[in-house]
């Protein structure tokens, strides 16, 4: 029984996931030029992907993924 509880405890520990903010390098495309925005994480990342970038009244999608 002790052996079983030890294995169970080991299994439980190994499955505890640490949640941390994702960070990604973001950019947008302006007149075929890539404008880097640097690393964005967590809520900033979500804000960037949701709101995009407005330049001179024009909204551009912010991309934060590898191609």
């Amino acid at each position, binding site marked *: 029984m002790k052996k079983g509880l030890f294995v169970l405890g080991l299994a439980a520990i*190994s499955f505890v996931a640490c949640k941390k903010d994702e960070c990604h390098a973001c950019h947008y495309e302006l007149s075929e030029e890539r404008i880097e925005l640097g690393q964005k994480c967590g809520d900033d990342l979500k804000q960037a992907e949701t709101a995009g970038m407005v330049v001179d009244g024009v909204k551009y999608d912010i991309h934060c993924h590898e191609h």
Partner: protein
Amino acid sequence: MLVVVCTYAQISYSQIIKSVKDAQSLQPLNDVTVYDAFGRFVTYSNELGVVVLPDSLSSVIITLEKPGFKSLYLDLSHDHGDDIFLSRHSQVLEEVAIVWQSAYLGLPTFANIDSRSIEQLNGIPQTNLMQSLAEIPGVYSSNTGPGISKPVIRGLQGNRILTFFDGYKLEGQQWGGDHGLGITELGVKDVSVVKGPAALLYGADAMGGVLLINDGFWETEQGLKISAFSQFETNSMGTTSAAQIQHRKNKWAWQAGGRFTSHADYKIAKKQFVDNSRFNEYNAKLGLGFYGGKFRSTLQVLMTQNQIGLPGHTHDSDPDESSFVTNVQKRNKILPVQYNKQWFTIWNAEWQFSNKDVLKLTTGFTHQNLLEHDHKHTIPALGMITQNIPVQLMFHHTQKRSMLTAGLQGMYNQITNNKEAEEILIPNANQKDVGAVLKMQWDRVKWKTEFGIRGDFRHINAKSFSKTYFGANAGWNTTIHFGSKRTLKVGLNSGFRIPHLSELLANGAHHGTFRYEIGNRNLKPEKAVQIDVSYDRMGDHFSFILNPFVALLNDFIYLNPTGQSINSMPIFEYKQINWALQYGADVGIHWHPHFAHSWHLESTISYLNYASNSTAFSLIPAPRWNSSLKYEPTMKGKIRIEDVQLQFTYFFPQKNTVSYEWATADYGLLNVGMNTVFGSKERWKIQIAVRNLTNKQYIDHLSRLKPLGLYNPGRNIIIKLIYNL
């Protein structure tokens, strides 16, 4: 092979079979499982090989089974003496001949069912459970890389295949070709496959077949059991680790387990890697069981969380195969990606009112959250939450040689779109299923038969769509034994499948399959009737199985390309054909020569085709010839080689395709494996295997990456360490 033992005496249900023994060594056999005539678990033999039949046993016919031994079919109305002997065998083909589905909570049936233990399926280890099932004749695996594998039974897949876990119907988003089942080998004891329509027992949607996954908790033995394994694969630098503990003391039992797997991009034979074919997954399970005399119940919770890369994505304006491969193998998450979080709560309960009457309930709750992110990490392109409650209530009334089953099955299923998702493929909807079944079984030693009828209703309700469907079905299955070596099984079964929400109401991009899909509200339910005949001859040294089948399909639903596209995604629409004929056969032999008793040669051929004047049938599995040569040395000592196996699988060319589908060339795959056990009690085992030993470049006909010209994995060296207490 089934051996009937007959002498004459009066039967008493408090009779004790004093000793179950090995016919060769004459030693007592423990853990021999005893089932009644209808496949229901009764008891186990103890450490001394003693079996005590309970007073509640109503059937005069029992079966004794133990892995590695021939099943013994015993008629208790005749005196059999004090000792029962089981003869050894290790012929996989003989497992196919087990007349009834062994174990468990499933519905007892005499249908032709192919059952395999998890050890048999993993003789040479695989990456996942669904790929292991492809060892079974007539069963294939449709893969989107190693991270997503779907079962294909007699050429049909998706929501034409029903999956049950310990009798509980799993209903998620399996309609999608890129949506996996989320069930792993964690704690699984055996898997049974019903091939073809099976609506009588399993209801609507059982058109292609049924997977019955059994984890054995319903039959937990006394004591403590610990099992664990760790597996490493070189092709994807993949690791899988799992552990499960199970404990029963008297009437109470519990179990807990966990599994984790992580794979980088898989390597193709050109020493390149399929970009974003990486994935990882966490699984966990908890269970609590009560095993009383008149009442038995188990409660289980299964959880799965995975992150699966979706290969085949590119921003190239004119992509070719090189757009989807990379020279660097990676594991980190990139887009597009699929997330799947799901949990199942399963409650099984059985009330035994008398020797003859049993009531069984299976119910629970499923929650699945499927997200697909295409080009944004925090905003899903597609998101669907599925929640359902299936209920099954079955009453069995047993006489000595017959059983009447009457039951109700139903489900409430709700699909809700994630409000943050950029696109919607199918609208929010709910569906309600209700079905009733009535079945009679007769068992007369040399033959057994069953017949049943069933009716099912389904009501689908969505925005601007509300419709009720009805289906009536029947089934007849008969088994005849000609002596002790030959068996004939004949089944005539119908099935039907109500169009899925995606087929009725889809109108959007499905990124995982790179299609824009358009549904058709006027689709009618599919119908099928199948004749399945199986003849087997089981000898001590040579066995043969022939299993032809033919099915008439009506109103078959398929996806048809329109030739147009939206945002560079080809548009497909759902259409329907009037009828088609599906036919094929599985043929197998097993040779275990007397002069070379440590050797086994097995070979099976599976073939399937359609006769139709339409272009509805895509992804028809290529004919497959699977052969294996196994050597089981007789060794003593603390380190013992259990077996060495060489397996060759040849896929014939498949040119039977639709207009938008690629044909595939023939290819052969060589796999080799060795299993070694350690210690006098054989608690430790190591498996060393190589899949695709010759590093063959090939494209599987059912691969979802076939249209992109992406090869299947190259050589894969697998090392697996197993511990069992």
